[in-house]
């Protein structure tokens, strides 16, 4: 069936087609444009739901393969395919992408047409990054995405939008051009071994390169991915971009864009450069940077006066957990880090939506301006509570599962790392609860807050899917572990070939992990 064979292309190019359609609409008719954009991105989400039914978690490797010869003279193909990791990220992207369109309905009043066109092009770019199986194509999508994001921040952003937008663009660009040189390194090494020029990702993931070359390429990739994540010393673009971006921009940035860095580590660095990835120097450097990010991000969040900036720095901390999970290089750590990528998309995406809702009403994000909002906005306060709990890792919600499994994996490798990681959770609880207390509880003494309206149905609908997903992962994470089992196993076998032979720990699918976790937490409570 044509549709089944090309489902990935359809999902990917549907938003772009929608953007082309929007071009034809008159820019004066704002409601028509909003409606069209919503329909297009909702359709995109619905079509991507088909993947849920068609995706077979028991098959290892890539599914829904599409391959067309594209630039034979350099060995680049238009080839798509998803495995468990990319499947989850694709689903996250289509959902977050739709919510970003939905949440902009009343927030964006100027240049509406352009706005939705950028959002939809961005959506295609992001999906392409997760779906492609060709490194050249990957690079194209990776860079294409920067342009619409630049405009989203630069046109509809806050007061320092121009600075934030170009900083975001340049930072990411520097990383990605260096990554390009790393790609060339792999490309030529493969040619020197096999005599074939190819950018095929599975082929490039099966080479044995000398360690020093691997380390150089790892360094090139590291710059590209670490900036995107962002890891500790490269994170300075993130607070600027988040604070200045419009709500939808922040939601996409936190929900999807940051995942590209961690996805890059999992898809490229680990399988293609296994010797470099398990080199003790590299592991200790990566883990150290992750731990610094966890603690530093949390500490900086504690002292923020701006609501959105607080959430932005909490991202740095949470992404630290994800990179920690990746570089402990065992099944628990990696599985946890992928689950946590989804979790972070859900929780932080939702937190930015929460901030956006209040910003649209009050046009300020100073925490000191608020207080006692739960009296006037009870539904809002309830949803915020759920999301905050999910972000700080309360059992029964998603954040707990991810962080628990990551820490379980870390504990296997090194107890000190795990101990430092736990401190991040404690601090996370502190800044989120304190934020909640300062804004939602207390007396409603600011006059401007007394007339605030509770959230309307549309805003409710932007948050509800994320809340449902948060509970799903929190209560019944088994399907997610099942989906991730095979791909994670493949990565671990590549990066630590002797792991399964010697490990006493079972693979996460039969997982004592999450289930045991829930029992424990039940006892605690």
């Amino acid at each position: 069936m044509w549709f089944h064979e090309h489902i990935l292309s359809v999902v990917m190019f549907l938003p772009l087609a929608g953007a082309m359609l929007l071009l034809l609409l008159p820019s004066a008719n704002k409601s028509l444009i909003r409606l069209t954009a919503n329909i297009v991105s909702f359709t995109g989400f619905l079509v991507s739901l088909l993947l849920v039914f068609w995706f077979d978690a028991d098959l290892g490797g890539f599914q829904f393969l599409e391959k067309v010869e594209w630039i034979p003279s350099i060995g680049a193909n238009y080839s798509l395919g998803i495995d468990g990791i990319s499947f989850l990220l694709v689903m996250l992207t289509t959902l977050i992408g739709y919510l970003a369109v939905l949440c902009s309905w009343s927030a964006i009043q100027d240049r509406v047409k352009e706005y939705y066109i950028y959002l939809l092009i961005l959506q295609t770019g992001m999906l392409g990054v997760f779906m492609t199986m060709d490194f050249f194509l990957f690079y194209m999508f990776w860079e294409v995405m920067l342009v619409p994001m630049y405009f989203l921040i630069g046109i509809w952003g806050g007061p320092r939008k121009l600075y934030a937008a170009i900083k975001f663009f340049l930072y990411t660009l520097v990383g990605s051009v260096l990554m390009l040189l790393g790609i060339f390194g792999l490309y030529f090494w493969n040619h020197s071994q096999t005599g074939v020029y190819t950018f095929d990702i599975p082929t490039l993931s099966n080479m044995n390169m000398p360690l020093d070359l691997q380390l150089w390429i790892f360094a090139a990739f590291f710059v590209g991915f670490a900036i995107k994540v962002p890891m500790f010393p490269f994170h300075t673009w993130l607070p600027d971009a988040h604070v200045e971006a419009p709500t939808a921009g922040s939601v996409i940035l936190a929900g999807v864009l940051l995942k590209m860095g961690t996805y890059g580590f999992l898809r490229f660095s680990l399988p293609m450069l296994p010797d470099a990835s398990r080199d003790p120097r590299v592991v200790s450097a990566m883990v150290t940077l992750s731990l610094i990010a966890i603690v530093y991000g949390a500490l900086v969040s504690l002292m923020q006066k701006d609501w959105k900036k607080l959430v932005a720095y909490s991202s740095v901390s949470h992404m630290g957990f994800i990179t920690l999970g990746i570089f402990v290089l065992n099944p628990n750590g990696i599985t946890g880090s992928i689950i946590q990528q989804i979790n972070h998309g859900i929780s932080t995406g939702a937190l930015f939506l929460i901030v956006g809702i209040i910003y649209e009403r009050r046009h300020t994000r100073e925490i000191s301006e608020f207080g006692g909002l739960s009296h006037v906005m009870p539904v809002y306060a309830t949803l915020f509570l759920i999301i905050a709990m999910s972000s700080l890792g309360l059992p029964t919600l998603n954040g707990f599962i991810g962080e628990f499994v990551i820490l379980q994996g870390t504990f296997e490798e090194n107890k000190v790392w795990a101990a430092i990681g736990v401190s991040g959770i404690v601090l996370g609880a502190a800044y989120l609860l304190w934020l909640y207390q300062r804004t939602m509880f207390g007396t409603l003494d600011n006059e401007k807050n007394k007339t605030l309206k509770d959230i309307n149905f549309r805003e409710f609908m932007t948050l509800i899917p994320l809340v449902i997903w948060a509970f799903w992962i929190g209560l019944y994470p088994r399907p997610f572990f099942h989906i991730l089992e095979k791909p994670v196993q493949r990565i671990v076998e590549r990066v630590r070939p002797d792991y399964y032979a010697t490990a006493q720990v079972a693979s996460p699918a039969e997982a004592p992990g999450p289930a045991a976790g829930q029992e424990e937490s039940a006892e605690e409570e």
Partner: protein
Amino acid sequence: MLTEYFSSVDFLVLKPAILLAIFALGVMMTDLMLEKGQKHLNAVMALVGIGFAAYSLGPWPGGIQYMMAQAGVREVEAFRGAIILDTFGIYFIWIFLISSALSILLSIRYLDVEDEQRGDHYAIMLLATVGMIFLAIGMDLVTLFMGLELMVISVYILTGYLRRDRRSNEAALKYLLLGAFSSGILLYGMSLLYGMSNSTDLRIIASAISQRPDGDPLVLISVLTITAGLLFKIGAVPFHQWLPDAYEGAPHSITAFMSVGPKAAAFAFLLRIFMVPLAPVRELWLPLLIGVAIATMTLGNLSAISQSNLKRLLGYSAISHAGYMMLGLIAGNDTGVKGIAIYLLVYMFMNLGVFAVIVSMRRQDLIGDEIDDLSGLIYRSPVAAVLMLIFLLSLAGIPPTAGFIGKYFIFLSLIQTQHYVLAVVAVLYVAVALYYYFRVVVVMFMREPADRTQLSLAPGVRFTLAVSLAMTLFIGIYPDPFIQLATDTVQSILP
């Protein structure tokens, strides 16, 4: 007998150039007969000339490429080896013909606004194109030098074409003085080559040079002087000072013209010289060129940041692009030379696209080359603003535009030949370049417009824009045919 000196092949090979020259003279004559309101017909005539030249060259019955394919030859020698028409030359002639045609289309409206609509303008453009053709197919120092002078003298005149405009005159004078000086240096180097080999044929010079002892001062001096002369023509540091001034002062349409065709011709010339007679002493000029390339990229990119005049900014960016292209020569393998060929092709389209927008900025009351003149373009002429964005992204080298493909091969060749540090420097300057191109984007997309006038896009400008856009996107998204074309092209120049 004359046939002792000429054969029909000689004329066949020169047919495109001869046709262009005839039409150039024809335009000058018909110009005298046209009334003031009919002067556009000069442009039509010039375009017809280019059409004939293209027809005589192409791969269809009657064209040179067709005959060569029929006869199964890949190169044709003429005038006893002074001229050689190979895939390399043909590729470049196509670039010259297309860029000249598109520049003529841009000139029509521009000259109207300046009230300088005269035939000699188009005639000189055609003559410059003739000069370029000789640079691409010459295999003899004298032929090459004649072609070079025909080209640059035509460009000097065109730079100063706005007689009543001080900037234009100043630019022409600067360009002429420095250009003549550099031609002298180049000629001095050529005379040394002749002295060493007793021949002006590039291949004989090559074998003569390879027989000189190591560290021969004569070889060193000739390489230095020739390199200096050539670097001037492509606008590389430290011989770049003329370029921003000439770009700024020249009429907009001529800036477009000289930034593409003559530049490509200078590169064709440069490649011929470095790949044939100077190839034996590669280790002598390689460090020199590496230094120059880094300096060129650095100066071009860093100076462009602070420009407020768009044409000056593009001038400095042209300097940095020359630096990138030199990297392909430094790599020196097939990927690198292929990279230069593709780079020049895509550079033509993206640059002409940008200049087409600048040309339409010109109004009676506005020169239209300041960056601020573009403010709020997205409100005034959304299509022009989006096109400009695409061309600027392409100049910066962001996929999926053609500019990325050009840079891709340059970077690829550097990694292939293990110039890692150079590759890192080169890719990092992409970020710098993006920064200054996006200064223009910020003005276009994120500033309120100073006035609400729309751009008036004349038919010729529209056509140029459409071609540039189509090719910039097409080469960016589906580069395969062009990569194969370039691969075929560079076969004939590689050792």
